[in-house]
Structure formats: C-alpha cells, structure tokens
C-alpha cells in the first residue's frame, strides 16, 4: 500500500474534497470554513475549488446554521456542518438532539437526515473551560445520532468519508491536538466502516480501549509496558455509536483485564458506558475490576500546570495499566 505523509488537518480537508467532488449534493457550512480554510485549517482550499455556495461561511449562529443543515439534509443535500469547538455543540443542542436525531423516527421513517456535524474535542491547549471539553458522551446519550471519534489522520479521513456517505446524522469529533501532526495516510481512496473497532496492537495481559487520540496514547503506554513484560492489547473503537462491543468482549475474555480511556468527563461518560455495556459478557473472565481513565469532573482550567494533571495521557495509562496487571501495592513499591 502506497502511503503519503500529511497532517491530520489536511487528511480532513482531503476527505471533504473527495466527497464534494464525488457528489455535488455535499456542501460545507460553518464559521470560517471558507476564505480562512477553517479555524484549524481543516477545510483549506475547498472554498477556492467549490465556490461560495457549496463552502459557506456562516454567521455566528450555531443553532440555526445547524438547523439549516437539517433542512438542507431533509431536501436532498448532504451537508457537512462544522461546529468549531465541541463546547459550542451546546448552542446547537436543540437542532442536534430534538431535530436531527429525531426527525426520521418521529416521521415513521419517511425522512432521512444525511447530515455530518464535524466538531472538536480535547484539552491541552490552555484554552480553558469553554474551548477544551470532550463532549462525546452528551451526544451518545441521544438516540438517533451516530458518534465518531477517530484517532489518527488516516482513521479520520476514512471515517469522515463514511460519515458523509451515511444517510443518518453523524457527529464527528476531531481532536484539536492532532490537527498539526503528520501521519502516514494511504495514497489511494478508501473508507472505514462504522461499528468495526480497530485493534492497534495485540496483547495478552490487559485490554486498553482508547477513544479518539487516547488510543494512540495507549499505544505509547503499551510500548513502555512491554519493557516491564506487560503485554497490552490496544483497541480503538472508532465509533461510539454504533459501538463494536464484540471486539472488546473477545479481547477482555483473552486478557482478563480492561482499562477504558476517554478524554470526556467521568460522570455518565463514555468509559462508564462501555464498561457497563460489556460487563455481563466478560464478568467471569475478569481478574481485576474494570478501570477507567477520564478527565476529572471539573471545568478544564487554563494554566497548563492545572490542566494536564486532570486529562488522561500515556503516563497515566502506563501507571494504571501496570497497577491493574501487577497489583497496586507492587506497582507502588516498584516506583520507589
């Protein structure tokens, strides 16, 4: 397979470009997606290529331009709506949760809403409490929405193309800290199906499920763990709705341990939901209780010395996984 090295942001722009070229009904709407090429440079070049009607800079009216996407999706277009920061999803929650998610069901299946809402998650930029949240759990909670949390650039590209072709509303979370990173991405065209988890690394001692770029952080942790003889299996679920439970269940049956890492808040969050949704299938295979690493239930603070300690990262994953495999007391003793 031929690969090229491009940034995560460019992989997103390529996915949109390919889909806009493939289907004239695909349009892009959002704040600064046009001339600027996106606040995170993920829509660069599209305005120049497709013009103002298909790449539309909107006023700062999140709820109504999301609703505009819903109305356009109802009448034959396949809009991609960009909501710059995941935190701003809350401004558009009526159109997302009460409209996009429900119209098909409420109409008895008459309508379809092929709408992709691209937004962001992730802290680590010293952007403080209103520009750093990971609110994937908020939309997972509402039936009728598919929820995607890609890890690398290649994953983001393939999954975004699938999202745009999907006939349902899809909330697509891009990780802010990934946009500028360079990754290997296949040269040829490809898509990645929803509901099929990706096993990034096979292992036998512990299963680590990481959403979004926490899967990559878990992979880094696994490289350290193996030095101490701990073999971790790393799973990227790719999509939270639909969730590929079977891949996780089969892995946990093999390893007997499960750590779930999600940058969302712990309370009523994705990690807790994944754990509970598979518990009855893995209970008798577990050697230790299921554990989770999430962002603490706090508004994200501004100062990096306050922010980083409350967000999961490779070091915390390493430590938690080690404790789960060799026991908390031993792990502590080893650290002295």
């Amino acid at each position, binding site marked *: 397979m031929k690969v090229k090295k491009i940034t995560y942001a460019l992989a997103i722009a390529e996915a949109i470009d390919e889909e806009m070229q493939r289907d004239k*009904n695909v*349009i892009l709407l959002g704040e600064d997606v046009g001339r600027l090429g996106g606040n995170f440079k993920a829509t660069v070049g599209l305005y120049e290529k497709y013009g103002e*009607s*298909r790449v539309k800079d*909107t*006023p700062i*009216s999140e*709820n*109504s*331009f*999301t*609703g*505009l*996407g*819903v*109305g*356009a*999706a*109802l*009448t*034959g*277009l396949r*809009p991609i709506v960009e909501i710059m920061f995941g935190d701003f999803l809350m401004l558009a929650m*009526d*159109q997302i949760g*009460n*409209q996009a998610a429900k*119209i*098909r*069901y*409420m*109409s*008895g*299946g*008459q*309508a*379809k809403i092929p709408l992709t809402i691209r937004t962001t998650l992730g802290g680590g930029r010293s952007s403080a409490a209103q520009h750093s949240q990971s609110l994937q759990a908020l939309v997972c909670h509402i*039936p*009728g929405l*598919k929820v995607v949390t890609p890890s690398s650039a290649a994953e983001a590209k393939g999954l975004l193309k699938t999202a745009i072709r999907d*006939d*349902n509303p899809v909330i697509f979370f891009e990780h802010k800290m990934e946009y500028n990173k360079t990754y290997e991405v296949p040269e040829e065209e490809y898509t990645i*199906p*929803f*509901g*099929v988890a990706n096993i990034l690394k096979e292992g036998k001692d512990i299963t680590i499920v990481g959403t979004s770029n926490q899967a990559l952080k878990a992979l880094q942790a696994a490289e350290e763990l193996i030095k101490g003889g701990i073999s971790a299996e790393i799973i990227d679920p790719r999509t939270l709705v*639909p969730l*590929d*439970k*079977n891949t996780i269940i089969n892995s946990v049956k093999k390893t007997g341990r499960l750590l779930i890492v999600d940058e969302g808040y712990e309370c009523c969050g994705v990690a807790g939901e994944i754990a509970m949704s598979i518990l009855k299938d893995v209970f008798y295979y577990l050697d230790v209780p299921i554990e989770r690493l999430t962002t603490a239930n706090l508004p994200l603070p501004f100062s990096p010395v306050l922010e980083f300690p409350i967000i999961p990262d490779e070091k915390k994953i390493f430590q938690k996984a080690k404790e789960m495999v060799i026991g908390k007391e031993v792990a502590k003793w080893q650290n002295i």
Partner: protein
Amino acid sequence: MEYKFKSIKSYGLNKEKILKMYQDMLKIRYFENKITDVYSKGLMPGLAHLYIGEEAVAVGTCANLTERDFAVSTHRGHGHLIAQGVDLKKMMAEVLGKEIGYCKGKGGSMHIMDINKGILGANGIVGAGIPIATGSAYSAKIRGTDQVTISFFGEAASNQGTFHESINMAAAWKLPVVYVCENNLYGISVDIRKVTNTKDIATRALAYDIPGVVVDGNDVLEVYRVTKEAVDRARKGEGPSLIECKTYRWKGHNLGDPGRIYRLEEERKEWMKRCPIKTFQERLIKEKIYSEEKLNLIEKNIKEMIREITDFAIKSPYPREEEAYEDLFVEKKGVEAR
C-alpha cells in the same frame, strides 16, 4: 375592530380557486371539531393544539404553493397540513396513534410529516422549524430549483433566537423562503403585548432589510394576496419576506386548556364574530359567487367526509409493539449489523 372587506371579485381569482379555499377552511374546522370529539371520548392519546379560528392563515398561504414547494409547520400544525392537501385518513390515524398514520403512530399530532407533499414536519419545539425552513430554502437555491419554502410559526416563536439567526441568514443570502408569523396574541397564557415592546412582529423585517407586512389573518383573500407577493418574490430569487397574520385561536392552547383564565371573554367573542369561514361565506353569498344552498351542501359533505375518515381511523389497528424499535436509523442491511 371594524374590518372592511374588499370585494372578492377584486382579487381576480377564478371561482374554483375561491371555492377550494372555502372548502379547505371548512375541512380544517371540521377536522379540529372532530379532534375535540374523539379527545373527549377518550379515543385519543396525549393531546393536540387546535387551529380553530386561524384557518384563513394556512389556507390563504398554501393556496400559493405547488406540490413541489415546501412548508415547515408548528405544534399547531393541523391547518397547514390540511391546506397542503394531505391524506386526512392518515392524518387522523396518526393523531389517534394508529399503524396507518403518517408516522406509524410515532409522531402524533405534533410531528405529522408528509415528505412527498413537501411538508417537512410539524414541530414540537417552538421556533425550531424556522432554521429548518431556511435550510430547505438554501437547498432549493443550491439545487437550482424554483421551490419556495413557507416557514410557519407563532408570535411567541418570534422571540426565540432561531427567528433572528435564521432570517438574518435568509436575508443575507436571498433565500427563497417566506416567514409567516401567525400572531394569535398568546403563547400559551402569555400575552405578547406583555413580553414584547413592538406593536407588530412584522416591523422586525426592517432590521433585516426585507419586506415586512401585517395582514388580517382572518381574511383568507388578503392572506392570499400578501403571501402571493412574497412567494413570487422568493421564486424570482429576490429573497425572503416576513408576513404577520393577525389572528386568534378560539380554543385554549391545547385540548384540556379552556383558554379562559388569561383571556377576556369579550376579546374572544369579538374575534369569533370575525370568524374567517363565516365572514367568507357571507361574502360569497352577498357577491353572488356561490349560492347559500350550494355552500351549505358543500359544508354538509365535508362534515360527512370528516366523520367517515374518523370512523375509519378509529377502527384501524394500533401498531405492533416491535414498531417502537424501527426507523431510528437508515441502515443498509448487513453493513452495520453489529
């Protein structure tokens, strides 16, 4: 509240079109009366918001639309749907929660949709249909069709952020949409005059530099004339308009609300004197466009037809329990089985 009607003939409409408006208003009136009836007999789950008194708004507006145009309705949506010519059997069945209903019993009164007739849904969230209608207009523009979208909403919805956000976009991008505000004076119990400083909602059009027109919402021909101008303008690519139809709901906010605590009886009686159907009937007879006998016969037939479709809906079966688990997603079989 003296109101002077213009002569029907001055509108230059053919007799059939005039008759259809009369019939459509009657269909709405009798449909809504029947809803009150089935509700009081305990045959209807939940509740509904009746359109009685406001018939001229939906009928006068929708008389300008073709089958290819779009309309986005509200929680008080029966009138808009009937005026757009939906299947009354399927509509009544939906209100009763039946399998053959428009939404297979999953939507009920507040969510009836007929996508094939361009009705993009009644909507239970006040003001939420305004951006959806704006999006449908955006879509028509991108797809290069001459389709027009009507966005119906009440005066209370005009105080939602979506009203401002959407009209702002539609005006900036000259979208083919007509915003029709049905000002029936009360948002549930709250008098618009107590929560809004301006006398008219239509004056807000000034802020967006689009036409804003106040019209008597109980005069079907005036509603028709004013919305026609706006629809023509939208179709020609000249952008949106805001039409405010002054009207009144005779009943409470919903079935079960007598609508009396917060309104003066005199006010209600005054508006009832200006019944959009009765006044229109009087004009038709006075101007000798149709005879009283002919109109009475039409009324009798509509009443009978509504009785029949209601009996049919009452007798039709409820959905299977498993139906609750269907229609959440469009799924291509096998692809996402897991």
